[in-house]
């Protein structure tokens, strides 16, 4: 069994504790307007043209985005990084895209990682079946769980899918005994109006269990915009500006009332 992965990141330090290897799995059922990994949305390998300059001449090469990895491949890469992972009490994170979309591979990979003593994290949009989550709970130490909007209609507008199942899954994971870090993208004009923020804080507070360890506020940024061009996907966020530093600080204070650690960024 193999998994389709579009990027492997070493010295990944913002996707869970310590130094980690993050595997970005290709394919996502959502279609968030601000997605910074547009190449992670399609569940198939894609080709992009990469041009490199040598002096004045430019050479183009077609590069495949998305390669198939076996569980052994995953373990080999982790073995290369083992010293850093051990030293920093880090581990492995499966992100995406939406890793749950390749559930069977994800399960096998997580299981193998656990068996080899690695701390495992899954970075998920929450959009998958309840059964799937239930089966990976025993082999997952940490869930990085995105909450983008509480209002269903607005959620559909922004991401293309309903949030009912997502929020249900969130509640279930809160009672799984495993660690959860909630990740809230802060997208000016989309989900940062006072009313929504208040509701969101309320929601996090009322559902809170021992499992909730941290809230990560992820400020919107445009790093992905050049990728849109490369992949020929229209970019809809040109007119949105990243939130100011001061604003993020304010939000940090605001969410700290939930009673867990709040961090700006991953």
């Amino acid at each position, binding site marked *: 069994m193999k998994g389709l992965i579009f990027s492997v990141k070493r010295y990944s330090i913002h996707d869970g504790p310590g130094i980690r290897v993050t595997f970005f799995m290709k394919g996502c059922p959502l279609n968030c307007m601000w997605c910074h990994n547009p190449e992670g949305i399609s569940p198939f390998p894609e080709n992009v043209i990469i041009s490199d300059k040598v002096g004045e001449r430019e*050479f183009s090469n077609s590069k495949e985005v998305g390669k198939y990895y076996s569980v052994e491949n995953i373990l080999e890469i982790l073995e290369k990084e083992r010293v*850093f992972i051990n030293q*920093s009490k*880090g581990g492995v994170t499966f992100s995406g895209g939406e890793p749950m979309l390749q559930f069977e591979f994800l399960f096998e990979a997580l299981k193998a990682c656990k068996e080899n003593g690695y701390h495992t994290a899954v970075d998920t949009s929450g959009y998958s079946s309840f059964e799937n989550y239930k089966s990976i709970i025993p082999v997952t130490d940490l869930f990085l769980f995105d909450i983008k909007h509480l209002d269903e209609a607005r959620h559909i507008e922004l991401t293309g899918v309903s949030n009912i199942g997502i929020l249900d899954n969130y509640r279930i994971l809160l009672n799984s005994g495993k660690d959860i870090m909630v990740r809230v993208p802060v997208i000016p004009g989309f989900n940062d109006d006072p009313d929504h923020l208040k509701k969101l804080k309320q929601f996090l507070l009322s559902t809170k269990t021992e499992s909730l360890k941290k809230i990560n506020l992820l*400020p919107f940024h445009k*790093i992905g915009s*050049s990728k849109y061009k490369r992949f020929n996907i229209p970019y809809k966020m040109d007119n949105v500006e990243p939130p100011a530093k001061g604003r993020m600080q304010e939000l940090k204070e605001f969410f700290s009332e939930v009673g867990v650690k709040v*961090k*700006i960024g991953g």
Partner: protein
Amino acid sequence: MKISARVKQLRELSLNAVEKISAERALLMTQFYKSDEARELSAPLKRAKAFEYLLKNKKICINEGELIVGERGPAPKETPTYPEISLHSMIDLEILNSREKVFFRVDEEVKNIYEKEIIPFWKGKSNRDRIMNLMTHEWMNAYKAGLFTEFQEQRAPGHTVLGYKMFTTGFLKLKEEIKESVSALDFYIDTQAFEKFEELKAMDIACDTIIMYANRHADELEKLAANEKNSKRKNELLKMAAVCRKVPANAPETVHEMLQHYWFIHQGVITELNPWDSFNPGRLDQHLYPVYKKEMEAGSLSTDELYDLLGCFWVKFNNHPSPPKIGVTASESNTYTDFCLINLGGVKPDGTDAVNEISYILLDVIKEMRILQPGSMIQISKKSPDRFIHKALDIIRTGFGQPSCFNTDAIIQEMVRQGKSIVDARNGGASGCVETGAFGTEAYWLTGYFNLPKVLELTLNNGFDKRTNKLLGLETGYAHEYKSFEDLMKAFKLQVNYFIDIKIRGNNVIEKTFANWLPVPFLSLLVEDCIASGKDYNGGGARYNTSYIQGVGLGSITDMLTSIRYNIYDNKKFGWEELTKALDADFNGYEQVQYEMIYNTPKFGNDDDYADQQAVAVFEIYYDAVNGRPTSRGGIHRINMLPTTSHVYFGSVIGATPDGRKAHKPLSEGISPSQGVDKQGPTSVIKSASKIDHLRTGGTLLNQKFSPQFFEDEDSYDCLTALIRSYFSLDGHHIQFNVVNAETLKDAQKHPELYRDLIVRVAGYSDYFNDLGEDLQNEIINRTEHEEVL
């Protein structure tokens, strides 16, 4: 900590002082050498008397407001010359005066003195002339072709650090030791007894000289005090005079005395000759701690006074630029920095953690002073607290390049492997750039950089050098004649051995010139066991004697060999004929070949064994060629891997290379990957770099580029700490974080091909800088500019 007005003023004075050539020392030295007395003396006595003449007659400089006194020249940054080592010509002086960077102003008076007094006397008589006359034809050709450099050609052997003993011993005590050593001489059976007798006499004169020099300062301070209106300063001046009467004659007992004690010693060493890396107080936090503690308990020193003294001490180093060089070495190491490297942390002689309050205080001083000199480093052992590393990261993140991080456990293993006692090893550290040494007991000399990629270039050309148009190496064949990669490696090994032989023969002659003509009785007092053995530091008197040849261009040569292996032998992407043509054409018209080499060939620095095995192979060949070969002063040759800035000079003498590098471009630095080829991030660089066996070297240098955003929060400090500790658990010797500034990012925008490895972070995400759109790049540049802490 806040720097006081006094220290601020001294710091300004130092920063604003203009580097100038002073003819004072050259003139005094010439007068002495011309004297009747000089003619009659044995070499050690001649040098001791010269030292005495210098310190008796040089101008005493006391700067306003300072607490620690003594300048090598007549004023801050007025830099002496050493004609007995190498003689500046009128043209050299002109170049120094007018060159844009690292200049030294030369005024008419100095030019006059040089023309009338210095040059006529020393022409053809400097040790550099002596060396050049003694070198073989092969040595001269290889030297001119840029296969290696020669450290001792313009400066005296140095690379020595003051050890524990001299921080707790006065020179009056040394005089007693000398007396004992003299009375133990056995003129009946020791054939060297007379030489030792002369040397010990010379050392005794050197003791008296440094005490006399301190007293001259005391005299001057008392004179100033008598005329001082301000009663506070008056008291200070009197106190300083008392300190100068006490040290270095006697052992220091307070922080003030210890700093002044060291500073007299420092001046003595850099006035006697111009040893490499000036001189170095080494484990300063360890030496200061006991006196600091005592004073704190007695209440005789306030925190403000402590910081004032340290600030004054720091400025002293910055007042002393590296002595000006000429010719080849100007491009090889072009900097005012004289590589004094203060060590913090590490372990105590009993092996326990040595980080103490002074370690943290000195980190504060480094942060607040923010001056080029002295350099600083932290020694990190398994036992060092994270807090210590975090505090250092706080300074590193400001992009000031200090302190660098060293692996104490590796340093100790390196030294124990070389046969040093565990206590001597624990008392040691690193000096210069990254050189391992036993402080106070070892004379570890760097003898020259060795151009590994140049040897490969010659190996591909049957030993012929196209640039100097000479047959330099062995005729092992042309590129196309090597039937396999192994054949090529065999030939490369023969060539490395051949050139190392040439270099070592040169070293063994050059060492003797210093032993015979230029002994250093003062420096010999400072390094154990010179007094006990009656032998000079330059003649093998130290407890341990090591000569290093520094390998340069490991990343580059690995990429070159890997490219040959990958493209020619394993995958047959192109043949030797095409490659040779491409190299001869500097890739003009062969961009496709160059493209394949740069973008589609495995490279060192990505934790890819296919490439990294060539690094290991080159390392082993180099190690075998050098390690263990005897030196003429009874020491041993060993290797280390560091370039200072010689990778630029060495690149300039090499044509286009099979890694896709254009002719004359710089080589890779230290054991770092070639510019921009590491695409997998810092962990992979560390993995690649740790595949060579650091423990069999005397130091390696790894430079890692980071954007300031990597230091953004507590979590990232933890991860960087883990990164360092991981490298050190793999026996890495040293890592330095080069925090890029906005300037670098702007350059990356212009030359993306050189910065393919540059990762920047924005708000918790990161990406390759090159991959960002221009507007985003600009945004990051703006932010970096904004965040740069000055």
